[in-house]
């Protein structure tokens, strides 16, 4: 049943996805250079899902969820992991077929496996975003999220973007038949210097788990949260024209600060210093920033506003 070119390493799966989506016409972007909780936070998804301009992008996004750290001991849980993200606007009519093609490309043949689309509505309270779609199951395991964006930053998405998110480690472990993430071959296991996922990330998982849970300076984090929030607000309120009289709204720099605030909130959450009641308030503050950025982005060229 095994196909002859079945991938043998984590990176082969990533490369197969990159090639597949490049072949389907997506711009293959690079990860965003900031700490984010999921691939959706990349401005290539959040901001580009807004406005009327067509868009097609695919990228790997390193993602951080401090509360999921397990010192590298849990077979599936990591505080730092990779997502593969595809976003196409407007969503093409054959998006499901395109997606299934990507599974074939990494060695999952839907004629041998049981691939199912199971209802799962997506919502991001911090981004003020929601969509309808499914989690995709392969033999009872969730391998992707498939979402048609309906709103981002409180704005209706017109046209609608189709978003695909693959949890790379979990998907790769399944394809490669690995039980513990740290045992997964990262590069070709027959290379002269074969490296496992654990060779690369076991130590960092330990270090970050300790820092996230026990060491991060919470006073500093609170201060940074306030700073990011203030800077975001300041950028959003800045005059549209610069000193030379050019109209340059700064949606992206403002959004960077919103991303920062979001990650700082996640770190504070992992340190256990945010109570249940405060939680909602913090999420609301981040959402207000994201909404402001979305509002501003919608006035720009990239959102399809004619000059």
């Amino acid at each position, binding site marked *: *049943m095994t196909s002859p070119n079945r991938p043998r390493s984590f990176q082969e799966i990533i490369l197969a996805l990159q090639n597949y989506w490049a072949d389907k016409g997506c711009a293959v972007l690079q990860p965003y250079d900031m700490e984010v909780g999921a691939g959706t936070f990349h401005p290539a998804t959040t901001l580009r899902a807004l406005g009327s301009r067509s868009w097609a992008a695919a990228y790997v996004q390193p993602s951080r969820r401090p509360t999921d750290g397990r010192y590298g001991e849990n*077979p*599936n849980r990591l505080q730092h992991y990779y997502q593969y993200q595809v976003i196409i606007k*407007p*969503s*093409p*009519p054959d998006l*499901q077929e395109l997606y299934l093609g990507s599974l074939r490309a990494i060695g999952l043949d*839907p*004629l*041998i*496996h*049981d*691939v*199912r*689309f*199971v*209802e799962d*509505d997506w919502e991001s309270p911090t981004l003020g975003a929601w*969509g*309808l*779609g*499914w989690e995709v199951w*392969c*033999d*009872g*395991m969730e391998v992707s999220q498939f979402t*048609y964006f*309906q709103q981002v930053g409180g704005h209706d998405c*017109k*046209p*609608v973007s*189709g978003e695909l998110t693959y949890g790379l480690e979990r998907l790769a472990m*399944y394809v490669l038949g690995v*039980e513990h993430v740290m045992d997964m071959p990262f590069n070709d296991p027959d290379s002269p210097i074969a490296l496992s996922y654990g060779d690369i990330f076991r130590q960092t998982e330990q270090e970050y788990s300790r820092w996230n849970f026990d060491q991060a300076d919470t006073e500093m984090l609170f201060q940074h949260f306030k700073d990011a929030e203030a800077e975001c607000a300041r950028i959003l309120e800045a005059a549209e024209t610069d000193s030379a009289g050019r109209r340059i709204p700064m949606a992206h720099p403002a959004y960077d600060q919103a991303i920062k605030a979001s990650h700082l909130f996640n770190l504070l959450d992992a340190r256990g210093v945010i109570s*249940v*009641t405060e939680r909602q308030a913090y999420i609301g503050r981040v959402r207000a920033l994201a909404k402001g950025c979305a509002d501003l982005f919608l006035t720009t060229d990239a959102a399809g506003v004619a000059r």
Partner: protein
Amino acid sequence: MPDLLIELFSEEIPARMQARAREDLKRLVTEGLVQAGLTYAGAGAFSTPRRLTLAVEGLTAHSPTTREERKGPRTDAPDAALEGFLRSTGLTRDQLEARDDKKGQVWFAVIERPGRPAAQIVAEVLEAAIRNFPWPKSMRWGAGSLRWVRPLHSILCILSDEAGAETVPLTVDGITAGNTTRGHRFMAPDAFTVTGFDDYAAKLRRARVMLDAAEREAEIRQQADNLAFARGWQIVPDDALMAEVAGLVEWPVPLMGVIEDRFLALPPEVLQTSMKEHQKFFSALNPKTGRIEGFVTVANIETPDDGATILAGNQRVLAARLSDAAFFWENDLREAKSGMEAWRDGLASVTFHNKLGSQADRIERIAALARGIAPLVGADPDQAERAARLAKLDLRSAMVGEFPELQGTMGRYYALEAGEPEAVADAARDHYSPLGPSDAVPTAPVSVAVALADKIDTLTGFWAIDEKPTGSKDPFALRRAALGLIRLILSNDKKFKLKVPLEVGLLRARGASLSAKRGDLLGNLASRLKEASHDPVAYADALTLAAKGSDVGVPGKLVAQDLTHSSWSDYTNWENGLDALLSFLHDRLKVYLRDQGIRHDIIDAVLAQEGNDDLLQVVSRATALNAMLATDDGRNLTQGLKRASNILTQAEEKDGVEYSFGADVKFAETDQERALFSALDTAEPAIKRAMQAEDYPAAMTAIAALRAPIDAFFEAVQVNTDSQIVRRNRLNLLSRIREAGRQIADFTRIEG
């Protein structure tokens, strides 16, 4: 007579929405067709994950031509009147007919609406149905503006008869209806044409799609049973899961797997919940061991390796899930064994409601209530209090964190691990019950005590902070708590005065809600109650005394003591709260009894009596009264009692006195009066005895014996005579009748 076939083919429709959607499609389309003047012989709706299908048989080919005549103004009426008539009919003057009428010549309009072909009507009706479909949640996709549950890909819409099939011309948001569909997503993805429903269903089956959800369910059930039977196992039935799974597949292929030995020590509820929630597996029970040892997963595809790859994959995912569960279980058991202190501490920092304190505060209240209630329901107070303190600790366990629906179930396991007796552990499991109206009601005394305390705390807590249900809003599920309370009392035949624990609950909850504002009356009272709860004997005694009919309870005493130091309004507010809560419970009781066939006016008549906070007594009275009112005697007696009461009320209002004493047989003038005296002499003590013994059927029999003498009395005797002595005597006699009735119920509230 053509047949109509409609298929709306889309991306995967959520399983939970399919049943409703096929009914909605059937309703919207058939109603639309009928409104447009067509008739049909029958209709059937079907659904799979990717399609909604409607087959309508024996549709009329055309709507009938209709002819309507309308009478207009007289021919000699002013022009303005005629113009108005022309506007309203849409005709011109030369299309009108002048006819002779009684008052001269009158214009008549004859409006003919020609029939329309079915295809035209179907196109309109289907487009409207698609555009207005009541999905619980719908979405847009691509650059379009149409809304559907998930992207809609194609519409099949054909009318067929002996002559052949005709595609109905219809385009909705760029999707043009045709006569083709597709089979199974992977096994038969190509498009094919269809000519009618039979052809459609047969071709779909060849293309690996079972159209009917009921058939898919039957297939799953049969194959799963066969797989289990081969191993000597049984599938644990689960209708909700079955409906969901049948909505996730077009071609069900059940596969059976075995749970690895290392997971068999997990509680069966954990295995079952994990498999169901995470993977939608059915559980297979080995009757020889009583354990869940296997599972059935339902694939949507037949594969060349007979599902071996699929099963192996599912097995791996299950192993990962159950490893997590085993990890939680072992850690939880360790904590349980060491006394669950960490969980208890943890609950102190979990807010139950910001005005009602933490979960730990809530447990304190429930423990005190459970202790007080225990003697009333035959439970050991120490055990009830102990169980209440343990019952919610599992909320902090890792397992309940993962599977909230296992709350209580895990509590029982952990209590046993901690060395608690069975009765205490069972109460931890059962104290949430009954949740739904068909849930089993706990019967073990300790469980009943804690379950009652739990519900009373919920009711009094939210009542105390004024979070009462309004209209359709009941965010804290107080109606459900009230129904649970009612069922606990009634199905266990527990007789006690509910006011007492309600008072206690309200006070404690109000104390909690006000404890922030120190020094006020109720905070003060609550702290006193806390003291009283450290003196459990006094507290329980007070409750028991109250249950026996005494109105004195600890809270009452405390209120009395504190009244001197506080304002009257605080106290009356509090009293009103209690009355309002009791009347809320009475309303719930009425709803509950109405479903049991007891009329609301009968319950009202009983609720107007003393002792209406003893729900069991209310129900016994209402049941007996209901039975009596079903007889001729009962109905006539009610008339007689009401008549007596009316005459008396009028006389009392007129004379400004109350007639309540002194009827004497020596002033009786007729045989009928004397007979009534004698009947009352017999009935009164019989009613009194029966009511004291709470033998309500006997009380009904006793009062029913008054029917004939009362009827005869009213037949023969004029109450308001000229002789004041005789009149007063008769009114006083009527008051004896009224009193006899009042012993049992307020008959004036009975309708009819």
